[in-house]
């Protein structure tokens, strides 16, 4: 049972690798990376149950957390070009032209 599900997850990850390397834009890659991380969480859980060591599920939970934070961090970096505080007026206006210029 767990062998079957592990093989399916591995096939899914291999197919996702194609999009991860061939994605024409940045956002395709980020989306494929996020989905790949979800598949990794499933794979860690399935391997833990397959080898009879359910402590692996803790690692899977931790990996899910890190995957989410990593996706948000990559998106924030490529939008604002920095990881600290969000930039002030000028760059925000450049980033979102429609919404903010109407207000000011």
């Amino acid at each position, binding site marked *: *049972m767990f062998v079957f*599900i592990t093989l399916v997850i591995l096939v899914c990850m291999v197919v996702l690798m194609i*999009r991860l390397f061939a994605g024409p834009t940045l*956002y395709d890659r980020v*989306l494929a990376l*996020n*989905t790949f991380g*979800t598949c990794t969480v*499933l794979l860690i859980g399935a391997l833990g149950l397959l080898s009879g060591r359910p402590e692996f599920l803790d690692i899977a939970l931790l990996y899910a957390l890190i995957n*989410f934070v990593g996706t948000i961090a990559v998106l924030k970096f490529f939008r604002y070009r920095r990881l600290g505080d969000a930039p002030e007026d000028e760059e925000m206006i450049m980033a979102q032209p429609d919404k903010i210029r109407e207000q000011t």
Partner: protein
Amino acid sequence: MALAIDILSWISFVTGAFFLFVGSLGMVRLRDFWARLHAASIIDSAGAGLILLGMALQTGFTLITVKTLLIVGFLMLTGPTASHAVANAAFASGSRPCDLVHDETSVEDAPTAKPKSKRAKSPPAKIRTRKATR
């Protein structure tokens, strides 16, 4: 009882594997970023949820089951949030769906009509339009 649990977890494993496979196939075959978002969301919610549910049935209702259900709940929270963040970032960067049609025969966009708001004067620069042929 054990047979019933086995059957239930087989059903959820096979259904989850189907959704995983369909989602990963869609990530490769679909032609647009905005179409690929759907495939990624299928993997994130349906595939992962069903497979982890099958695992939770197999662990025999102990603390491990609680951990598996915690992973399910967390993935249900963060999957759509991450998809929305990626879509929002792509939209802010100027990407638009490739089938977005700019209908030049409609009344609002006719060249003689005056723009109704400030926003109509300056549309986003990078919209890829295609003329409506009918």
